[in-house]
């Protein structure tokens, strides 16, 4: 792998970000709007005093972590789509760029995006709702790492599907993650899901992060198996989707669809 090629792709996104209102809104506006909506709802529910737990902490923690996952997925799939929309894809792949470098740049971009979102939402949640993101202590690092990896895997998966089926499948880049949400126990514990859906839920790495977040909030302790299972499922899916992506790329080259990707 060559650093200068990964750097080239990253710099290109930084150039794009500087003057693209939709991209700026994607990081600054929509997540903040979501935080405000859920924040006010949490404040209202707290005032009703209907539960013994802090609704504010649960919901704001959930929304911040959910946005982190969302940003990680989008960093991969939307940046890929941007090259397709700009008809620039071939220019990139007639250069010596390797697929591993393309994926590494996407992973770094995802890392930058989640750090930005975490800082922005963390600061605003602190200012508006006295929510302390550091209440998760050391666990914040494995939580964010798992969300980064899982979002990255989802991004690679949707990218591979778009590669294979063309932009007719681009809706997946925006909507696929929404399919994960109900099973991922973002805003409620897994135990509130029907038994048979709980099995599905435990196959999703982000479930362990959201369950873990609630465990830390309520008891201050995270069951180790949550982290172990989160990393184990994540590594399994990551290897699977990277293999799938390489297979799809190779299949597209055999079918001669790379130039017709629009």
């Amino acid at each position: 792998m060559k650093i200068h090629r990964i750097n080239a792709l990253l710099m290109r996104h930084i150039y794009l970000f500087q003057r693209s209102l939709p991209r700026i809104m994607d990081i600054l506006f929509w997540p903040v709007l979501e935080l405000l909506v859920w924040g006010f709802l949490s404040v209202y529910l707290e005032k009703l005093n209907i539960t013994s737990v802090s609704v504010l902490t649960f919901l704001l923690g959930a929304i911040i972590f959910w946005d982190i996952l969302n940003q990680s997925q989008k960093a991969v799939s939307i940046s890929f789509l941007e090259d397709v929309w700009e008809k620039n894809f071939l220019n990139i792949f007639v250069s010596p760029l390797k697929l591993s470098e393309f994926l590494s740049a996407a992973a770094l971009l995802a890392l930058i995006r989640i750090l930005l979102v975490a800082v922005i939402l963390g600061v605003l949640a602190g200012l508006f709702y006295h929510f302390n993101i550091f209440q998760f202590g050391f666990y914040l690092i494995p939580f964010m790492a798992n969300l980064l990896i899982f979002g990255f895997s989802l991004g690679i998966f949707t990218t591979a599907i778009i590669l294979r089926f063309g932009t007719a499948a681009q809706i997946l880049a925006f909507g696929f993650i929404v399919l994960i949400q109900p099973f991922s126990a973002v805003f409620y514990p897994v135990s509130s899901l029907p038994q048979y859906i709980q099995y599905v839920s435990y196959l999703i790495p982000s479930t362990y992060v959201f369950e873990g977040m609630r465990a830390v909030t309520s008891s201050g302790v995270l069951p180790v198996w949550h982290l172990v299972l989160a990393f184990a499922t994540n590594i399994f899916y990551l290897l699977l989707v990277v293999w799938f992506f390489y297979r799809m790329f190779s299949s597209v080259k055999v079918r001669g669809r790379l130039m017709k990707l629009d």
Partner: protein
Amino acid sequence: MPIIEVKNLVKEFGKVRAVNDLSFSIEEGKITGLLGPNGAGKTTTIQMILDLITPTSGDILVFGEDMKHHREEILSKVNFSSPYVALPNSLKVIENLYTFARLYGVKNIREKVEELADFFEIRAFLTKMTSSLSTGQLTRLNLTKALLNDPKLLLLDEPTASLDPDIADRTRQMFLKIQREKGISILYTSHNMAEVEEICDRVIFIQHGKLKDDGTPEDIIMKYGRKDLNEVFLHIARESTKL
């Protein structure tokens, strides 16, 4: 040693054989035209040379090495330009050039960009948005991008398509200048036979994915007993529709 050596190349898309046992070689430092009617297999062949399409069978050697094992090494010495492949519109011209210079690992990026900006006379719009450029300016930008890595081989897919006669003529003069001053080997596809006749040292005609003919434009015209390459093209294309 030839710059490109294509041996018994076959590409099948399902039941369609787009390239059918094609063999040819490209000499160093020459402009070679790859010609043929629509659907003859030119673009498929170029894309196989660039490793964008995987051949069904056959071999492609570029600089004497095969793409499967030496992709990175080969592509670092090759570049490509086509009006059908764009540079991102939402970047400034200079940002696009810096991005591709980084991708190709160009040393002294600034000097290289300035040198080529002067060569293609695009210095005045380096800081403009790519989306604001005219078609002729975009062609020059694409060519600037294509020379950033000092390629030994340049593949140009219908580079003057959609250009007006004036800009097309200026662009052709640039190709001749590139070849003369930088000694680059160029593989060129075009449907403009007058253009091919003007700038190509040699032409390769493909028909139904197979090699139809190969030689200098003068030899080919003489062989078919026609007035110019355009008439030769029409003869081959019409023969091809009869088949």
